[in-house]
């Protein structure tokens, strides 16, 4: 390329692109973060397309082929790479399906809590005054709720509700997602409020106001886009957090309900004969561990990559 062409190209790079490149470069320098991202991608790939290649459904039971070990063939000639569970269901198939649900719960909770928290935080920080006082009191209130007991009570109450338009086996998934998001939006809310408190004092916000731009537009076109970096980080961390909480709930018997498998309820299910069949617990346990760790590493790496000074 000639010098002129190079210059022309430099002029064409927009901030978005160049910023993205800079962040990406800093991110991949963070080795654990990169490893986390790769793990997450592999997991996602497996759980999304993996079940398609499995000859079994996650509910298929083979009578008389319970708790087969790894690399075994049942009496009907079916091959089970990881073996079967206590009802004779193929473990790999179940793990893949469970991964779908667990990751979906993680992403859904993260998405919901981020949207909700971001909106409340932005409105609260932008308007200030009474709006802010009331919103922050609500945040304090939610934060003082002891979440575990509430989760237990709520999931018992909501366990058998019918939600129109949602298949029966998905009900408990939806319930868990809503409860978790409903408890955790306070984090992003405080985060965004803090950002907006300083952003609204910037002259570009005043300029928009002077132009007659509506508050809603200022919030959604200026305040939120400028708070995006920490929001992305916190929502990445939130995915791992939600997966953990779902597992804890499952362990206590109040998570997503069987037969819909999650890594959490598979783990908790396996604990009855943990000593005899440790592999049944090991598989989902390792997957939870891997997924959560990966999201945390990726989130930490993103935080450092986006802004080395930003500490949350």
């Amino acid at each position, binding site marked *: 390329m000639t010098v002129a062409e190079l210059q022309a190209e430099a*002029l064409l790079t*927009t*901030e*978005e692109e160049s910023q993205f490149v800079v962040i990406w470069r800093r991110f991949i320098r963070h080795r654990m973060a990169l490893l986390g991202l790769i793990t997450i991608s592999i997991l996602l790939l497996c759980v999304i397309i993996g079940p398609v290649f499995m000859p079994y459904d996650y509910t298929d039971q083979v009578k008389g082929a319970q708790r087969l070990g790894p690399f075994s063939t049942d009496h009907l000639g079916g091959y089970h790479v990881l073996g079967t569970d206590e009802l004779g269901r193929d473990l790999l198939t179940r793990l893949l399906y469970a991964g779908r649900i667990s990751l979906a719960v993680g992403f859904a909770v993260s998405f919901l809590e981020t949207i909700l928290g971001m909106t409340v935080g932005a409105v609260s920080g932008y308007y200030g005054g009474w709006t802010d006082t009331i919103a922050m009191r609500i945040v304090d209130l939610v934060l003082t709720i002891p979440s575990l007991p509430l989760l237990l009570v709520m999931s018992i109450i909501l366990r058998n509700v019918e939600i129109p338009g949602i298949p029966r086996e998905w009900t408990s998934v939806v319930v868990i997602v809503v409860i978790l998001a409903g408890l955790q939006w306070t984090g992003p809310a405080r985060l965004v409020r803090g950002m907006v408190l300083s952003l609204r004092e*910037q*002259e*570009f916000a*005043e*300029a*928009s*106001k*002077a*132009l*007659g*731009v*509506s508050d809603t*537009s200022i919030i959604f*076109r*200026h305040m939120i*886009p*400028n708070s*995006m970096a920490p929001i992305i980080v916190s929502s990445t961390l939130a995915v791992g957090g939600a997966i953990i909480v779902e597992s804890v709930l499952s362990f206590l018997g109040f998570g997503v309900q069987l037969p819909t498998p999650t890594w959490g309820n598979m783990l908790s299910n396996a604990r009855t004969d943990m000593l005899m069949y440790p592999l049944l617990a090991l598989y989902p346990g390792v997957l939870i561990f891997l997924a959560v760790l990966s999201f945390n590493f990726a989130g930490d790496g993103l935080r450092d990559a986006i802004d080395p000074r930003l500490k949350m």
Partner: protein
Amino acid sequence: MKNDLLVVENLVKYFPIRGGILQRVQNWVRAVDNVSFTIKKGETLGLVGESGCGKSTTGRTILRLTPQTSGKVWFDNKDLFSLGSSEMKKIRRDLQIIFQDPYSSLDPRMIVGESISEGLRAHGIGTPQERRQIVAETLVRVGLRAEHARRYPHEFSGGQRQRIGIARALTMKPKLIIADEPVSALDVSIQSTVLNLLDELQEEMGLTYVFIAHDLSVVEHISDRIGVMYLGKIVELAPRDDLFNDPQHPYTQALLSSIPIPNPHKRRKRIILEGDVPSASNPPPGCRFHTRCPVAVDRCRIDMPDFEEKIAGHFTACHLVEKI
């Protein structure tokens, strides 16, 4: 009143200082304290004063970017502070502002074209296609290029950003622009090019300016009249030449004495002010300038001098200046 585009009457803006665990109001920052002035169509009023004397707050309060404590502002014979939000929005087209800081005055995440056309969008002016056209034309008018619309603010220099800020205000075809220290943050070498641009635009579009600066020399060329502020008050307001040739207020005299004059025969005696500007949350009683005034008398410590038209068209707030 008929010819006056903007009339500011006894404008007051106090900011609460909160403290304690209950966040009660403990004191007030008297940022703007009883400021009055008028501006005719096509005129430029320079507003000068040291940092923190309330220049920006005056501008922001007039624009209703921050609520007033008391006072009245008429713009185009409309009482601004009594307008409903939809009427106010309509009037915002005529009343624009240019900011001091070329860095924080543009949203770093928005391409320049979006920023410039934001006002047009908000008022539903033109189709997206037409708005792009307006943005392109305005960019060219302020000395940039049409294709700059697609770039982000960080790709521009301070001077260019200031031009973008000017373009943003111009798209609304305003009648009055409050220019809040538009060149203070720029290199001396580019200050004059931006000042010239503002001058040309005024002529071309019949603009009226409130031109804020902290230095008399910056406003000298562009202003028709100049107001000098000290601690939230205007202490002297006069046509430019009257103010420069015959300053009445001791503060103005001190400010003028610090401007070097090229002509060695017309040397002014430098008046050095002692002490610091008192805090706006605890202003001195009487004349606010008395703690630093070289000619203060006893009365100055007790009585607040009125801001009066001592000579025709020349307003001053000082006990020692005789009314003629």
